[in-house]
């Protein structure tokens, strides 16, 4: 059974908390968590260390809160998969609703990687909709960049505000339209340089072999292997589903390798592609694996076609 603002709601009740002071955050979050504990719902805190301590010290009885931290927000598809697993476990154990308060580590707001976290915020509206989840995503308006705030408004159907209000956000766009809409993307400056290697319609073996050729010593062998798998999947997809010719461009700096796979097609038709593991594990896994194995993946729809930029190392 659903309780609180989500009473009677089916699926994922996804809210943003946009606060500008500790008090404002606590005014929203403390009642949310207190009520969850009171009615016996799994009540989970996925905040950074500072805010987790702040919230728990403000609660009259924080015992019973569950805490999540660290690798949950490592990569979007990993975060989605681990939350789905957690939610499924609670539902199987009989939970009528699960409450989560979460926030990103500041690193997610880095312009070099925000794009895939914006896609995450949109995709979870669908990916978590099978579960009776009520979650709040906390954003500190004092420190969150404006490009992030504008995506937050487009990806959260509702806002949770002090005083127990839950207004709908007028800028909200369902994932199918938010994710499909061509958005201005920020390119790693390395992409402006000439590729170290460029291959056109390569056989898969050659596309894979070039990865280790361009990888500098600072990139770990595991990362090189992961990127090799990702490149193999990207080239396979471009050849099977894209429109040739397929261009593969390899660039590297001391701290990262970027491989860009481009074709003249429209890219994946499913806006969730890459972020959520397909239900049937045959086909459609390629893009999801790229997102799992790389440190950053940028899907780039351009007038010329579709490119996927795969980065291991430190995205910039």
């Amino acid at each position, binding site marked *: 059974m659903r309780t609180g603002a989500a009473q009677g709601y089916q699926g994922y009740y996804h809210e943003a908390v946009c606060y500008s002071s500790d008090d404002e955050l606590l005014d929203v979050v403390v009642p949310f968590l207190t009520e969850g504990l009171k009615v016996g719902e799994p009540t989970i805190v996925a905040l950074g260390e500072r805010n987790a301590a702040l919230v728990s010290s403000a609660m009259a009885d924080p015992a019973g809160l569950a805490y999540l931290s660290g690798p949950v927000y490592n990569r979007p598809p990993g975060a989605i998969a681990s939350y789905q697993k957690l939610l499924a476990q609670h539902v199987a154990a009989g939970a009528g609703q699960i409450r989560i308060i979460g926030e990103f580590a500041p690193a997610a707001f880095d312009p070099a990687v925000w794009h895939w976290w914006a896609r995450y915020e949109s995709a979870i509206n669908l990916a978590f909709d099978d579960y009776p989840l009520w979650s709040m995503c906390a954003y500190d308006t004092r420190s969150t960049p404006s490009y992030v705030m504008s995506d937050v408004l487009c990806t959260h159907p509702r806002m949770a505000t002090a005083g127990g209000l839950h207004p709908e956000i007028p800028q909200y766009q369902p994932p199918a339209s938010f994710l499909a809409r061509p958005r201005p993307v920020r390119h790693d400056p390395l992409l402006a340089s000439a590729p170290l290697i460029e291959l056109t319609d390569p*056989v*898969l*073996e050659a596309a*894979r072999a070039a990865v280790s050729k361009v990888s500098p010593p600072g990139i770990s062998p*595991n990362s090189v*292997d*992961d990127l*090799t*798998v990702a490149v*193999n*999947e990207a080239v*396979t997809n471009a050849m*099977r589903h894209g429109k040739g010719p397929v261009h593969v461009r390899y660039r590297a700096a001391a701290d990262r390798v970027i491989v860009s796979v481009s074709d003249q097609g429209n890219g994946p038709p499913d806006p969730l592609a890459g972020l959520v593991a397909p239900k049937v*594990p*045959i086909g459609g*896994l*390629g893009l999801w*694996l790229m997102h*799992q*194995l790389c440190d950053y993946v940028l899907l780039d729809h351009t007038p010329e076609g579709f490119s996927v930029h795969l980065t291991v190392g430190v995205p910039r």
Partner: protein
Amino acid sequence: VRRSEVLDEHPCWVYDDAAGFQAAARDFLARGLDSGERVLFIGPGTETDLLAQMGDITGFSTSVENGAAKVIPLSGAYSGGTVDPQGQVQTYAAATDEAIAQGYAGLRVAADVTSYVRTPSQVDNFARYEHLIGRYMAENPFSGMCGYSRQELPESTIAELECLHPGGNSSLAGFRLYPVSANGEVALTGELDFASRELLAKALEHADLKPVDGELRIDGAELRFIDHRAILRLSAYAQERDAKAVLRCDLPVVSRLAELVGAANLRVELTA
């Protein structure tokens, strides 16, 4: 497993002209004679033709006279247009036993088998034989070079057969799946990707692996790349046999990949 020996025991030799195969067969058989093995050369043509083709091997005619070497016109060696996989293995096993009993170190055969793989059903049959004879070779002093004509066979047919051999002079399939023990443990080498997915499925069908203690053991020490499709295929193949596939390799990425795609019936054992 004596890997270097296995590699030399069962080469797949893809040739452009008959003279090319004969030259490779001469090298292969001469090594056998040097090691005290009995050698057989099997191919199309008459006995006289075959003797002439091997004539360059030093002492070949003496070897023929004393029984160390023999030439066999093709129809005499196999049972007809279609090989009986199990029966042919037994025939070679008996011939190997006989060679050993007569004081030879083993038996070594070079055969042009092009004419046995002209139709799809012949190919299926012969591919099964290739796997079974590989099992026998893995633990017995028997070795064989299989010759396939590039002029007479489609590349897809050659690739289907090539990938069941541990070695040879071609690399069409990109990977190899071959026995390393008599009970069917196999080695999987090379690179497996979207381009080889159908060949892998066929190779697994031809190998028809039987679980030992609920496991299909796969030696991936010389595996260089395997994509998620091949990982899922191995897992599904093991599941069809109520078994777990156990892939031993030194590629941590394979372990990560198997976990990510949820290959429930495949376990990766990292050796490094």
